[in-house]
């Protein structure tokens, strides 16, 4: 069964059950299914069956999953875009994706769509209110067609859209749901959604919950930013399956009252998106003795995650936790620069082969060609993705992550190309040259970004006032998580002999 059939089965069996909880309001499975039917008919009427992507803009509203399902059930992949994105980035994603329809669950900023794009008011979709217009007969996406397209940071300053097919998603969901199943939760499980839907970590909780008849509890970004509101909301959530970045767990752990008394039904923590530290894992194991702590690893290009391991006391001694063993259907290879597969114990590039590998970047054959390949597994050519991540495998197949081959960094789970920020900094008025470095803590995890800019004039104002002004300019081009925490104006960006920004010299001067 594909994921849509599974959600339909859940809706048939548990129509009254809450499918989605947001701001203390529930959307039942019956409502989710019937509202998404109307959306699918409306989208089919608007776009026919051309398979063009549908941009869905909003945050965590009930209408978001309704619109996602509506698009897919009409035969169109959806492109989730979060309200935290600046107008410039939304406009470039609408254009790059070739979308002809945007479902605006929140009001769209002005000027982000051209004349050829229809904007459908999606505010009341969850109540079955679809703006009037032509209706059509929906025809759901085929297994080999894209189910969603998620945009990630690209090194040229243009985001790139990763296409995940319905069949890849089904293989991923098959496996991800077993990670929760094994824990024997009593009653209807509640999955925590922390990440915005535009970040592929959310695919784990969204489909983990909806394909199994569980409830998805979505946190609003405003709640995440307020310690007291977060504590209260978690206490009311009754979450049993926790899905988040490790940074979010650190944020919660800073509250001494965050423990099993707040979430008595919590049985498993599923982590993805960035390095999980032994300190975080150890603290969770101590405060939630009945819950498993599971580390996972995988890039957006191979559908959220492809390895997992339950962290035990025996893992906490080392400096780095393992990221796990490959799921069924996935093979992990470690290769050298020439593309030769290395034996266990050697460090090299992590290459992921198998049934959840993306079919490539939307409308970008150049980038697809560079990162995707076929590898021979026992005589079978298998789609594979070259991650650009370094790692090594133990003889028993346990993977350890060892950093990046290029300028990509992970900050609080977000994947960021430093060159993407630099390109956009240069677009800010007055900026001549820019370089961004990632600052790491003692454990090697990135704590924040530090940007250096060279201006075409003598800055007017104190250093912090100038930095705040530059940040404001940068925010019109990139999402908040890509705005360097510290910005320093320098007279000249130091260069290496071959004309690149000298990152080492900049890192040395980052204090």
């Amino acid at each position, binding site marked *: 069964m594909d994921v849509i059939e599974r959600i339909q089965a859940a809706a048939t069996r548990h129509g009254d059950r809450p499918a989605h909880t947001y701001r203390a309001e529930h959307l039942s499975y019956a409502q989710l299914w019937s509202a998404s039917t109307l959306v699918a008919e409306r989208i089919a009427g608007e776009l026919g069956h051309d398979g063009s992507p549908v941009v869905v803009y909003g945050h965590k509203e009930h209408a978001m999953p309704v619109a996602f399902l509506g698009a897919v059930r009409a035969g169109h992949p959806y492109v989730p875009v979060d309200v935290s994105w600046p107008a410039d980035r939304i406009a470039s994603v609408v254009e790059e994706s070739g979308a002809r329809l945007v479902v605006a669950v929140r009001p769209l900023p002005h000027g982000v769509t051209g004349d050829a794009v229809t904007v459908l008011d999606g505010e009341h979709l969850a109540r079955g209110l679809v703006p009037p217009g032509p209706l059509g007969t929906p025809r759901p996406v085929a297994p080999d067609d894209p189910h969603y397209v998620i945009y990630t940071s690209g090194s040229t300053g243009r985001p790139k859209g990763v296409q995940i097919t319905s069949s890849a998603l089904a293989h991923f969901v098959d496996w991800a749901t077993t990670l929760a199943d094994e824990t024997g939760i009593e009653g209807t499980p509640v999955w925590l959604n922390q990440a915005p839907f535009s970040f592929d970590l959310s695919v784990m909780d969204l489909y983990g919950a909806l394909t199994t008849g569980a409830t998805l509890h979505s946190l609003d970004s405003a709640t995440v930013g307020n*310690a007291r509101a977060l504590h209260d909301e978690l206490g009311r959530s009754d979450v049993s399956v926790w899905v988040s970045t490790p940074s979010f767990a650190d944020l919660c752990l*800073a509250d001494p*009252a965050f423990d099993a008394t707040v979430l008595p039904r919590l049985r498993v923590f599923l982590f993805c998106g960035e390095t999980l530290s032994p300190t975080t894992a150890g603290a969770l194991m101590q405060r939630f003795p009945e819950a498993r702590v599971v580390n996972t690893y995988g890039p957006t290009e191979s559908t959220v995650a492809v390895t997992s391991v339950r962290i035990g006391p025996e893992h906490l001694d080392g400096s780095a936790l393992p990221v796990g063993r490959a799921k069924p259907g996935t093979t992990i290879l470690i290769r050298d620069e020439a593309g030769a597969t290395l034996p266990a114990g050697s460090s090299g590039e992590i290459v992921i082969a198998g049934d959840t590998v993306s079919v490539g970047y939307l409308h970008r054959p150049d980038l697809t060609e560079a990162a995707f390949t076929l590898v021979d597994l026992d005589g079978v050519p298998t789609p594979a993705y070259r991650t650009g991540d370094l790692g090594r495998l133990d003889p028993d197949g346990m993977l350890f992550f060892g950093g990046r081959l290029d300028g990509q960094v992970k900050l609080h789970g977000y994947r960021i190309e430093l060159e993407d920020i630099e390109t956009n900094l240069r677009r800010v008025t007055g900026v001549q040259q820019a370089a961004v470095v990632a*600052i790491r803590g003692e454990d090697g995890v990135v704590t924040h970004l530090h940007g250096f800019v060279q201006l075409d004039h003598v800055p007017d104002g104190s250093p*912090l006032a100038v930095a705040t002004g530059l*940040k404001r300019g940068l925010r019109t081009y990139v999402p908040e998580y890509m705005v360097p925490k510290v910005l320093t104006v320098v007279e000249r960006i130091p260069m290496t002999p071959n004309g690149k920004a000298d990152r080492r010299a900049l890192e040395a001067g980052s204090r």
Partner: protein
Amino acid sequence: MDEAQEQQVLRLLVEVCGTDAITSERDVDLFEAGLLDSLGTTQLLVSLEDELGIKVPPTAVEREDISTVNRILTFVSERL
């Protein structure tokens, strides 16, 4: 709060905010300047507890009380 304690708090703040520019601009709103956020706030509270023994749960802090360096220094001196 004595001089040594003030220096200690400033050092923790430089660590959390990532820049020593904050020590010479003590009335700048750190949240508006993008130098302090909820994660930074919790890091700061954890460090204050570890190093100065000041125990304040993050749920008991109003953003306005700790929005500038000077306000944070007052906040700390009131709790020493």
